[in-house]
């Protein structure tokens, strides 16, 4: 445990992590409410991006339907809370189990029958779309008219029920993001992590070295799904309303994967860096377009798309790898090394 988590991080790496964490811990004392909500969004994307990265970045399995697990987690915890008064921390257990089971079914169908690459990605979309349409008809969970959590003006923060002010979610999501970083580092440096990367690089060669490819891929899918569902629990209790049309929508899945793509697929810090860059950029763009009175619908999306394209063309391996090399943080385990990712 300790060996996988701690060893090999250089001194200045710890320093940068400590300084960043300290700044983020202190931020609510200095910044306004708007920036707090932006940072919560960043932490959310950083966390979900890391979870997605386990599947794609580590094990090479492209999921374009991760909104499925966010949605399942959100609905599981919210449903239990609204109908049975079960608190979100217990709901989280249900969220993890339900997402895990769905991931097992999806993984089994795909990997037993040799569905890979683009076809696997399409299967993940199909599962998410199936949920989107299916949840529209589950009356118990509000169907298409939405599921709402009771809200009031909070004077204190109830951590147990996750009822409180944004700053409570700020700290929770910050912790979640950092815990995910630790988990991902341990996974990547474990035996399973080596096996995932071997599978990502060449499945047949991996198999010839005694690796049970099916089993390793199943672990990737289930761990990734379970982690993602936890983001869904916080999503539900932070926004207090859930609509299948929004939660499970493919654009939600795409949002999750943009961070790791821009930050650096398969790296540890890339998804976090990507979430910061993209969210700040997106918010900044909104402001900027208003200043220039460019408020026609779609203008933001167009600029956003062009910016993404430029980053991908200039830095095909993401923003983080060159930074990691410059800072001397490129790990032996592949952090910051150029990868010839295959789709």
């Amino acid at each position, binding site marked *: 445990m300790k*060996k*996988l988590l701690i060893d090999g991080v250089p001194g200045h790496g710890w320093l940068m992590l400590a300084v960043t964490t300290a700044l983020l811990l202190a931020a609510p004392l200095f910044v306004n409410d708007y920036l707090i909500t932006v940072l919560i969004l960043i932490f959310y994307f950083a966390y979900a991006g890391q979870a997605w990265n386990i599947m794609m970045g580590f094990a090479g399995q492209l999921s374009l339907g991760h909104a499925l697990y966010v949605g399942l987690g959100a609905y599981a915890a919210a449903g239990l809370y609204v109908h049975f008064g079960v608190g979100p921390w217990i709901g989280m257990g249900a969220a993890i189990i339900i997402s895990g089971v769905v991931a097992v079914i999806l993984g089994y169908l795909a990997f037993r029958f040799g569905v890979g690459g683009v076809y696997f990605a399409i299967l993940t979309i199909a599962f998410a779309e199936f949920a989107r349409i299916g949840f529209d008809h589950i009356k118990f969970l509000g169907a298409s008219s939405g599921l709402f959590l009771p809200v009031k003006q909070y004077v204190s923060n109830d951590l147990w029920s996750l009822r409180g002010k944004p700053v409570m979610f700020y700290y929770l999501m910050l912790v979640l993001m950092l815990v995910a970083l630790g988990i991902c580092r341990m996974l990547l*440096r*474990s*035996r399973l992590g*080596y*096996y995932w*990367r*071997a599978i990502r*690089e*060449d499945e*047949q*060669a*991996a*198999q*010839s*070295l*005694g*690796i*049970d*490819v099916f089993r390793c891929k199943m672990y990737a899918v289930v761990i990734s799904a379970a982690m993602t569902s936890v983001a869904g629990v916080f999503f539900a209790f932070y926004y207090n309303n859930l609509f299948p049309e929004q939660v499970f929508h493919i654009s939600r899945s795409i949002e999750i994967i943009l961070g790791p793509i821009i930050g650096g697929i398969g790296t540890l810090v890339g998804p976090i860096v990507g979430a910061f860059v993209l969210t700040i950029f997106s918010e900044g763009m909104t402001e900027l377009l208003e200043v220039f009175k460019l408020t026609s619908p779609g203008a933001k999306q167009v600029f956003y798309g062009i910016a993404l394209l430029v980053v991908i063309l200039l830095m095909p391996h993401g923003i983080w790898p060159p930074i990691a090399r410059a800072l001397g943080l490129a790990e*032996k*385990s*592949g952090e910051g*090394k*150029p*990868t*010839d*990712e295959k789709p």
Partner: protein
Amino acid sequence: MSALLEIKGLSKNFRGLKAVQNVSFDVTQGEIYAVIGPNGAGKTTLFNMIAGAYAPNDGTIIFAGERIEGLPPDAVCRRGIGRTFQIVRPFPALSVHDNVMVGALLREPDTSRASVRAHEILRLLGLHDKRDMIASSLTLPDRKRLEVARALATDPKLLLLDEVMAGLRPTETDVMVDILRDLNRTSGLTIVLIEHVMRAVMALAGRVLVLHHGEAIAQGEPAAVVRDPAVIKSYLGTEVVG
């Protein structure tokens, strides 16, 4: 002296093409056995059946007393058969060390100890100085060495080498021959190698199997096999005798 590997009546067809036809041979524990033959003779196909990549259409493969034909490649590897690929397949984005590490983790789940093992093997194959290089940046001879290192890291009882000398310079071939001979002598590793480089075959192999159009046309000691008229006619030509 018992047979580690027994092949009986092995056949494989690809849509009518008889790639391997009714081939039988056995490999004794601790020996170095070579498979030679012209291009398209079915040598790699034979390896692929032993390693579990293809299920044979007919015949049996007995390894260490158990039938293994039709098992998946990972199961075959876990039973103690390591293989290299003729067209090398390193994990391109991983470092040389990590490539070998993946193999070493099979018998040594602890990552630090597996890494120690990987370092040993890298030294053995002369790749230690290049351990932090990305595998995709290696030259072909180094990739061939990496292929051997990775298979060796799984600590096999039987090592299947598919043309690992191809593309090496004569001096490099001699180094590889020495490495393999040492491994065989010190750890009793059994080796089956497919090889076109006759100088390596003559130096290493105790016995040779000659395949032609999927059929075994000769087998025996190298010196005898290279004088076999059928072998000379189909494969060696006239100039390489002796």
